[in-house]
């Protein structure tokens, strides 16, 4: 159809209302030594060592920051094992045998409300840096770098939109731990000395609205509000969310802090709450296991480092065992597909989507223009595709593929089932050369 596609066929109703299954004590846990942002790491422990939960066991090094590695349970360090990381690469993982005692590291302590009220922004930034908080919506951008901005912040946006279809991890988090979210927002507002915070959700989430209408009564007068925004994809994108929530149109690539806005994912907020209240890194998270390739889609609350293989039997195993499966970590529009189910839940894995592989027959492009109409950054995907096919670099540069946010809408809306997004990724690479 020649139309703008923003509504994506969604299965959220299937799992969004299910409470998360607690699966927090697996036999073994696996901690990544490297990730997409941090290619190198130093490990401080030797095989056979005992580790406490939340103990710093190493340090990941990236280009411009270091990130401590925390154990997520107490037990014995067994050795290294290779598993698939979220980014699709085979990575060394630290294998820890759980002793089920969950002894906590001595650094953890509960800060009283008075102590927290006395914390300055710099102290909070340091705590967040030590707890290795990152953007848990999937970006894994270090939160402390966001905290280091010296621009005045007028409004904090909390992203609970979760605009990708299928995923309900943030949905469950918001429903099950509303007070943690609120406390996290309170601390962040204190850090930025900001008087206003908006919790953005899709307006179709009536259940979240009902919960927060109640909870916000207890936080009356603190400037925290619920903001219902559109139901479309990609509403969760920074620029779109800021436009819908505050009416401010950002230029692409412009930092929101220039306009006095800073935004965090809801799960990052809970991470900040844990870090500031207990000095605790993120060791557990919500995760959705769903898709048409799995028997009973479910939400889980798991320890970071759980192997995904263990979750599949809990969901009743694979459906249609003779059909090939696609295994996606993240959303079905932007998530990475991994070549094996032997992968590990890291901090930023929001969901596991198992889809039956569909082989779409690619037809010639009939220039219907759906991709152009759907593109949220107003590119012309089909023109870029033709430029790539013609290997015309001049044309590619003029069509500006570097602005693409890889939301996947061009491929989603293509009537000819062409993988347009792949061509644009190629154009991005080629124009950089």
């Amino acid at each position, binding site marked *: 159809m020649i139309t703008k596609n923003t509504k994506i066929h969604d299965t959220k109703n299937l799992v969004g209302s299910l409470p998360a299954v607690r699966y927090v004590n697996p036999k073994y846990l696996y901690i990544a030594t490297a990730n997409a942002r941090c290619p190198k790491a130093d490990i401080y422990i030797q095989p056979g060592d005992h580790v406490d939960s939340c103990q710093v066991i190493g340090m990941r090094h990236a280009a411009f920051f270091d990130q401590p590695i925390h154990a997520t349970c107490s037990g014995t360090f067994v050795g290294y094992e290779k598993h698939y990381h979220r980014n699709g690469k085979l990575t060394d993982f630290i294998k820890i045998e759980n002793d089920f005692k969950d002894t906590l590291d001595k650094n953890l302590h509960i800060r009283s409300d008075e102590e927290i009220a006395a914390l300055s922004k710099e102290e909070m930034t340091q705590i967040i840096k030590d707890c290795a908080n990152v953007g848990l919506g999937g970006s894994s951008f270090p939160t402390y770098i966001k905290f280091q901005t010296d621009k005045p912040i007028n409004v904090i946006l909390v992203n609970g939109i979760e605009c990708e279809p299928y995923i309900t991890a943030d949905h469950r988090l918001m429903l099950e731990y509303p007070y943690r979210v609120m406390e996290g927002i309170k601390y962040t507002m204190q850090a930025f000395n900001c008087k206003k915070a908006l919790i953005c959700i899709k307006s179709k989430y009536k259940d979240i609205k009902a919960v927060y209408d109640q909870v916000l009564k207890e936080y009356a007068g603190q400037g925290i509000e619920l903001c219902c925004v559109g139901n479309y994809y990609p509403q969760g994108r920074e620029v779109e969310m800021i436009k819908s929530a505050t009416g401010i149109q950002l230029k692409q690539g412009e930092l929101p802090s220039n306009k006095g806005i800073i935004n965090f994912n809801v799960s990052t907020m809970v991470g900040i709450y844990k870090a500031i209240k207990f000095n605790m890194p993120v060791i557990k998270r919500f995760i959705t296991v769903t898709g048409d390739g799995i028997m009973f889609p479910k939400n889980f609350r798991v320890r970071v480092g759980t192997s995904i293989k263990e979750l599949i039997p809990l969901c009743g195993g694979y459906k249609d065992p003779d059909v090939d499966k696609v295994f996606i970590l993240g959303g079905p529009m932007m998530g990475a597909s991994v070549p094996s189910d032997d992968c590990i839940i890291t901090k930023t894995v929001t969901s596991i989507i198992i889809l039956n*592989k569909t082989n779409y027959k690619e037809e010639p492009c009939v220039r219907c223009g759906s991709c152009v109409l759907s593109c949220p950054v107003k590119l012309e995907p089909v023109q870029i595709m033709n430029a790539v096919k013609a290997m015309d670099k001049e044309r590619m540069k003029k069509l500006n593929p570097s602005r693409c946010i890889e939301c996947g809408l061009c491929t989603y809306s293509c009537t000819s089932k062409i993988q347009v997004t792949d061509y644009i990724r190629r154009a991005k690479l080629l124009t950089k050369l």
Partner: protein
Amino acid sequence: MNIVKETAPHIRKKSSVTRMMVDVLIALAPTLIFAIVVYPLQAIYTLLISLFVMNGAEFVGVGLRNLMPRDDQKHSFKERFEFAYKGKFGISNVLTASISAVIYTLILPPGVPIYAIIIGALVGIIFGKLVFGGLGSNIFNPAAVGMVFTKLCFGSQYQSVSTWYYTVPDVAAGATSLGLLNGGMLDNITQYGLKSLILGQIPGTLGEVYKITIIIGLAYLLIRRSADYRIVVSYLGICTLLSLIAGLSVYSLNNAVNPLRFTAYYMLSGGILFGAAFMLTDPVTSPINSPSRWIYGLVAGVLTIFIRLFAALPEGVAFSILISNMIAVALDHYEWSTSKYNWKNLLTMGLLVVIPVLLVWIIISFGGVYNGQL
């Protein structure tokens, strides 16, 4: 069960090119059925011949494009055939060729000699489509190319055909009521009432005259979103505006002419509605961006009205569609194509409305086109 890797996104919309093409055929069906009812013999043989010729040419064309490259080994005919066609000739090839054939049938008048139908269909599909690379790559609307070629080469061989549906008044055979308008014979306009214009009880082509079925088809296409409303709205809008201006200009010279009636005749005669519904909206030959699509509709509309008003040709729609097909290619050039509405393309749209309006008014009022009869 294997776990396979693929690139994001992993889900797709439930729609396909096949579905869009079937939609066009469904939208064409009422008009086609009406044509067959009114001219049973002529419509059926024109349709069958053009379906056969266009599908055959498409089949041969796909085969020639995918010929097995020359190597020193021997290949059986079966191998060569499979190399050329396996996965390359599908339902969408048949559907596009059939759409072209149906449109070609409906824009031909009844009584076209069979050899002219065959040659026109061949020229249309080969020079309108296959030489550009077939499905998805063609610049011109194959049906329009075929129709224009037949008309220009064999126009004098067309025979008039009588039908039970209406009685032909004493006019030159094969002339559409548009010809009457254009030839300065406004008196003849009363010959056919507005009612017969709407019902298609006028001489004309096989399918262009049945306005009710065409509007049903157009509505279906727009509801199914298989046609872009931008092109339809801008084309019909500019045609209405310009014919209204022409009507008003004539009214200022001759008070006997009712400008609204003049506009209604202009819009309901000839192929304006048919072209807007089925030929201009063909996505392959229209531009990609939405501002360009508005411009494309405007260009086609201006050309249609100018050819009708001032040219010696009776029928402007097919010509204007072919010319705007060429302009569509230019509109899609990467140097200026954009999907944003900026001052440049808004100015172009504005000029495309204002300049033709002024030109129509000036030429009719002061250009001496009006000879006292019109």
